[in-house]
């Protein structure tokens, strides 16, 4: 048995002369929960369809348990999909939907009864066997779709934004349930979402996708704490992107000049050369603001906007060079008013270099 359940090798795909996927490489281990995170149109669904066999790559190979399945029909792959719109068969009841693949395999009645009962209690739908899909709520349809895909005991389950159509509360609950289910079954999941919170909550590894390429692959904490690029930093957690010039590096500290101010950032494992442009990311919750009267001291900015979002107070400040930064803090009481002059700072460990072109090693 191969160590990797799935391997993608240099997958490319184009539709009508538009390159949708531009050379994807990925390995997924047994029992791993991998999330493809990206905005709509970045090619994540196409990637999933290629793994399922519903789409053919233009070039590259798909390996399942070390076996090349690039040209294998979808019905002959040991992979099942939970579709975005659930795709439940409207002319079959819950039991018939779930048992569909078992009937195709001509399993005997006792076996089907047993598996059906097991998988339905797994998704907490016991007693719903005779319901038609039209009689189910969104969350229930979701569970049927998952049960239908799991009853086959696939080695890999693909989920295409499975919680996209559910309301926020149900989505949170289903996130937890799915994660628990995945751990219990030990089946590898490839999960598509555009919701960074969902990705950070559930995944063993996150693959950030952008315009048909994998921008960064890493654990949630790697992705969150050490974004490799400004895109990742902004997409996962809305970080501020700050530009300056490298002055020098000592151990893990880098000094960067912004205008006529010198700030410190961490190195994130890179070796940054002096006099080069530097781009680094600072999350809004790590931006510190203080009243200041002297425009010369530190990074000075003016408060331009205050608003509440996601239980946090967002304070937008404008630097002298017109660039905007966002700071966030808990609570809605804050000592700053729009128009106030403030000094901006952060702890060096919270400023992470991104978009570093040198061959270096990001992360720890």
């Amino acid at each position: 048995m191969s160590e990797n359940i799935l391997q993608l090798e240099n997958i490319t795909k184009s539709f009508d002369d538009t390159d949708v996927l531009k050379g994807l490489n990925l390995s997924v281990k047994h029992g791993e929960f991998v999330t493809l995170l990206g905005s709509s149109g970045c090619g994540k669904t196409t990637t999933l369809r290629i793994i399922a066999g519903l789409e053919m790559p233009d070039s590259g190979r798909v390996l399942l348990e070390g076996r090349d399945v690039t040209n294998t029909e979808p019905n002959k792959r040991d992979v099942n999909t939970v579709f975005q719109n659930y795709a439940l068969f409207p002319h079959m009841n819950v039991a018939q939907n779930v048992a569909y693949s078992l009937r195709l395999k001509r399993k005997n009645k006792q076996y089907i009864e047993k598996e059906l009962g097991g998988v339905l209690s797994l998704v907490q739908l016991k007693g719903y066997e005779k319901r038609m899909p039209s009689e189910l709520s969104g969350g229930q349809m979701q569970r049927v779709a998952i049960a239908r895909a799991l009853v086959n005991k696939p080695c890999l389950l693909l989920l295409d934004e499975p919680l996209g159509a559910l309301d926020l509360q149900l989505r949170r609950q289903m996130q937890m349930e799915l994660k628990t289910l995945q751990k219990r079954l030990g089946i590898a999941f490839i999960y598509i979402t555009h919701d960074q919170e969902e990705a950070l909550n559930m995944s063993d590894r996150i693959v950030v996708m952008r315009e048909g390429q994998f921008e960064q692959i890493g654990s949630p904490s790697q992705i969150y704490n050490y974004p490799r690029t400004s895109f990742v930093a902004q997409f996962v957690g809305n970080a501020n992107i700050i530009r300056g010039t490298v002055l020098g590096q000592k151990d893990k500290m880098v000094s960067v000049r912004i205008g006529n101010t010198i700030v410190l950032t961490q190195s994130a494992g890179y070796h940054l050369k002096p006099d080069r442009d530097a781009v680094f990311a600072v999350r809004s919750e790590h931006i510190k603001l203080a009243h200041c009267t002297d425009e010369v001291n530190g990074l000075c900015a003016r408060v331009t906007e205050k608003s509440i979002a996601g239980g946090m107070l967002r304070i937008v400040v404008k630097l002298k060079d017109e660039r905007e930064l966002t700071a966030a803090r808990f609570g809605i009481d804050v000592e700053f008013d729009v128009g106030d002059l403030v000094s901006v700072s952060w702890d060096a460990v919270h400023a992470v270099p991104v978009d570093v072109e040198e061959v270096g090693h990001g992360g720890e």
Partner: protein
Amino acid sequence: MAGNNSIKGKPYGHSLWLMILPLYLFTLALVAGPLLYMVILSFQTRAEGWGIVNQFTVANYINIFEPVYLSTFVESFRLAILCTVLIILFGYPFGYLMATLSPVWKKRVMMLLMIPFWTSSLIRLYGWIIVFRANGTLDQVLMGLGIRDTPLKLLYTYPAVVVGMVYALIQFMILSVYSSAEKLDFSLLEAARDLGASPVQVFFSITLKLTMPGLLSGVILTFIPSMGLFFIADILGGNKVVLVGSLIQDQLMKAHNWPFAAALSVALMLLTTVLIFLYKRITHTTELEGMG
């Protein structure tokens, strides 16, 4: 609620009935009336030579079971089944594939289907005479291509009638399958493939089941008329192929046996009703039972 008044409430109650009334009267006078008269007529006795005598009899119905007439029924039934099978074989894939076309091509194909309707079906049938007659278009093409040495002389044969019937009725199958296939969610077919179904299994367990209402209404729309389209058999079959439709026409126009013609019509109608009843039962069960 204001909205309810317009439907159930009193203010519009009477005027609504007044508006619908002419429609009911019209239907009663022009559809139910003649139908009822036909049923009455079928129980009356034929007069010597011309017209009818007002005398109750069931002889007309017993007459249907005369081998000559019964065989006409059987023959019509056979032809209708053959035509319907052919129409399914050609019409179903056509209608289904049409639903998978891009919107632009859908419009174009729909146009091509509709254009023949602008001409009377009788005139279109005469077109087939030109194609089928000895040394007609078909024979010239076949002989020109060297496929045959002698003319096929298809006109006034059974196959010519079948082709005419299929041609005249296939649009109904295509359009009703199309309308049903257009509503089909194609991701269901992918889901079935993903769950391990081969293309053939997907077709029988999902595609066919979900387009069954369209297929069955197509069958009703083609089978029933093909029992009665006497002019096609007349024009393309000469008098070699006699169908119930032709029989009724002959009894009415040539033999002047109106009561018998009426009895034949009622019998045909009953047969049709039974078929529609069966159709309802079948569609109902497919909706409930799912895969068998």
